[in-house]
């Protein structure tokens, strides 16, 4: 049996989902698409049934790919649980009535029931049940209320098969229903209500946003550093080192197999960062250096998502995003990209026009380093001083702005306008946040460990065969001249195609100056996305656009790498360097518009 959870975005569907399902939850792509949905299982009357968390949708006449998938999934389910936000009944009923027109049994979960009271909303449930002709069950998924009643209705199989003919008649019907079942009294304004309003108004919202982002950053680095300093590194030193040292001795401290598994001994000892064997550095990078920051980042991101803060941020930055040809919602892929560029590339698909998709994907891939790379930058550049880390991010931010301004001017096509529901601020549910965190950590481990191991294997292989020496001879002089990097860094740039954290790991084996590290970190972020992101982007943008995007990346790399090499002197960007950056921003203003940039009103 297959039960589909369907509803508008922000109705607490995922909380509902985690209440119903156990720990065996998987995120999968819908066949033939990159739309992600979550599937879980539960035991019901001696039967294991599938629960599917269908992507949130406002309507069954799809406006984007995610909604198309939602509609397609309808044909596969045995029962739909339509999760409805009771505090927003009117808008939610639009989807409900459309579901009633389909050939599938529906039960309605009137979620957020606990919130209706303080908002002064009264809903006559039995009347609503009578008018819709299907079971309507009040629930408060976050507290676990009403979930049992939903499960008791799992064998409901009646199909009402309504026909409202067209959109207008459907809305008329909704109007009638609302009139009969709902009464809204002006509720009292709580502190949270005020906070909700302050967080959207620019005058108060921008300081709040600055504070929240600063706090998030502080907490992430606190958790990340803490986990590394107190858990992962001590674990590797005291538990793992004795084991692997024994293995090293067993293998005779040298030889092909030893070099592959353990790597080179540094002053007679295994160095987790520099030995570069499969079982030393290959395990250390993903688990000890990167994982702590992945945990920290996704924990905070989960909280930001589930409190309902992100849409507010999207509305606040709408203005800025229009300058680069996007609208406020595009901040979401940018933030996701800080975790991993792959889900960010997937999130770009909910943008409407081809032009917006191209700009958002390119900016994300070019100037947003993923947490795996950031963790390595912090570990590698950090010891030279915080200001060098800051420089990497300042340069990337400047790249984001300048490339964005240019793309907006030069790309043909149209951009759309923001239209975004601002959900109420809510206390996140600990269970949902942790479950989501676990799913993200799991998918990081699943991706990172094999790729890092494969990468280290290839690196060792290429060193042994001597390919890197040849490449260093061919490409090395160019790197040296343009970017001021030693010719050995060729191998890092090459491995950056596979994984950025691995590439940064290779840099750790070289004695680079702070300036060289700043340059190398920056161009590693810019020049090309890692292979996993690249694969998704090809599917999303098509091969032609992806080639164009790659061209933008390569040109940017040359200009930025060369520029930083020139303008970074005595531990900072020179005044002339700053002038050039500012001049570049101003000059983009004088480029004539190559497109009409009209906001599309038809689609």
């Amino acid at each position: 049996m297959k039960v589909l959870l369907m509803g508008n975005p922000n109705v607490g569907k995922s909380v509902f989902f985690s209440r119903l399902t156990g720990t065996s939850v998987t995120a999968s792509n819908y066949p033939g698409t990159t739309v992600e949905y979550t599937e879980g299982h539960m035991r019901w009357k001696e039967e294991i049934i599938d629960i599917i968390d269908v992507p949130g949708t406002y309507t069954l006449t799809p406006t984007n790919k995610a909604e198309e998938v939602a509609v397609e999934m309808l044909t596969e389910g045995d029962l739909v649980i339509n999760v409805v936000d009771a505090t927003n009944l009117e808008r939610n009923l639009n989807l409900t009535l459309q579901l009633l027109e389909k050939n599938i049994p529906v039960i309605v979960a009137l979620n957020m029931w606990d919130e209706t009271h303080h908002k002064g909303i009264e809903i006559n449930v039995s009347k609503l049940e009578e008018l819709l002709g299907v079971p309507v069950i009040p629930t408060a998924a976050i507290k676990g209320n009403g979930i049992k009643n939903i499960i008791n209705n799992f064998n409901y199989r009646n199909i009402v098969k309504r026909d409202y003919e067209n959109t207008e008649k459907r809305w008329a019907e909704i109007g009638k229903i609302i009139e009969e079942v709902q009464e809204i009294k002006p509720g009292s304004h709580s502190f949270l209500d005020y906070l909700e309003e302050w967080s959207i108004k620019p005058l108060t919202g921008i300081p709040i946003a600055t504070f929240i982002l600063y706090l998030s950053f502080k907490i992430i680095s606190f958790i990340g550093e803490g986990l590394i300093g107190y858990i992962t590194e001590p674990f590797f030193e005291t538990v793992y080192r004795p084991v692997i040292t024994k293995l090293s001795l067993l293998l005779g401290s040298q030889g092909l197999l030893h070099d592959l598994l353990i790597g080179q001994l540094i002053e007679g000892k295994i160095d987790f960062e520099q030995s570069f064997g499969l079982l030393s550095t290959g395990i250390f990078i993903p688990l000890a250096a990167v994982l702590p920051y992945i945990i920290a980042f996704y924990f905070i991101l989960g909280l930001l998502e589930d409190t309902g803060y992100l849409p507010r941020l999207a509305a606040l930055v709408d203005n800025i995003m229009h300058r680069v040809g996007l609208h406020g919602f595009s901040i979401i892929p940018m933030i996701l990209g800080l975790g991993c560029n792959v889900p960010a590339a997937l999130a770009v698909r909910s943008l409407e026009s081809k032009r917006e998709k191209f700009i958002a994907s390119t900016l994300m891939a070019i100037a947003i380093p993923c947490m795996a790379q950031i963790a390595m930058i912090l570990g590698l550049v950090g010891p030279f001083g915080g200001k060098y880390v800051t420089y990497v991010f300042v340069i990337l931010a400047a790249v984001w702005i300048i490339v964005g301004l240019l793309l907006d001017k030069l790309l043909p096509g149209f951009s759309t306008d923001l239209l975004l529901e601002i959900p109420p601020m809510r206390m996140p549910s600990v269970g949902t946040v942790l479950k989501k965190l676990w799913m993200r950590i799991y998918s990081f481990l699943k991706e990172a460990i094999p790729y890092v191991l494969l990468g280290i294997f290839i690196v060792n292989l290429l060193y042994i065969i001597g390919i890197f020496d040849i490449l260093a001879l061919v490409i090395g002089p160019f790197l040296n001249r343009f970017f001021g990097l030693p010719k050995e860094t060729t191998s890092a740039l090459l491995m950056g195609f596979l994984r950025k954290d691995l590439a940064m790991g290779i840099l750790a084996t070289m004695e680079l100056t702070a300036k060289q590290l700043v340059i190398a970190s920056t161009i590693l972020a810019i020049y090309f996305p890692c292979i996993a992101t690249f694969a998704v982007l090809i599917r999303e943008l098509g091969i032609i656009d992806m080639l164009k995007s790659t061209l933008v990346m390569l040109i940017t790399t040359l200009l930025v790498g060369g520029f930083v090499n020139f303008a970074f002197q005595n531990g900072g960007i020179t005044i002339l360097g700053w002038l050039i950056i500012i001049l570049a921003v101003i000059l983009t203003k004088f480029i004539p518009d190559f497109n009409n940039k009209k906001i599309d009103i038809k689609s």
Partner: protein
Amino acid sequence: MTQLNELKNGEEGIIISFNGGQGLINKLNAMGVRTGKKVTVISDSFIGGPVTIKIDTNTVSIGHGMASRITMEVER
């Protein structure tokens, strides 16, 4: 008659019409923005930014361009 983007914080109005194609109307309808509905502006358009409105209990942010296509009747 005024356009939604011209309304100030706290002002109320009723949506009269949408100046756009069926696609725009469907998109707005699906978000609960429909003709005849009473709207309160929570955050007005700040140098080309979006307008955030409240309809009953529903809060929606609408980009400046789109808001300029929504005609309102305002009692002042």
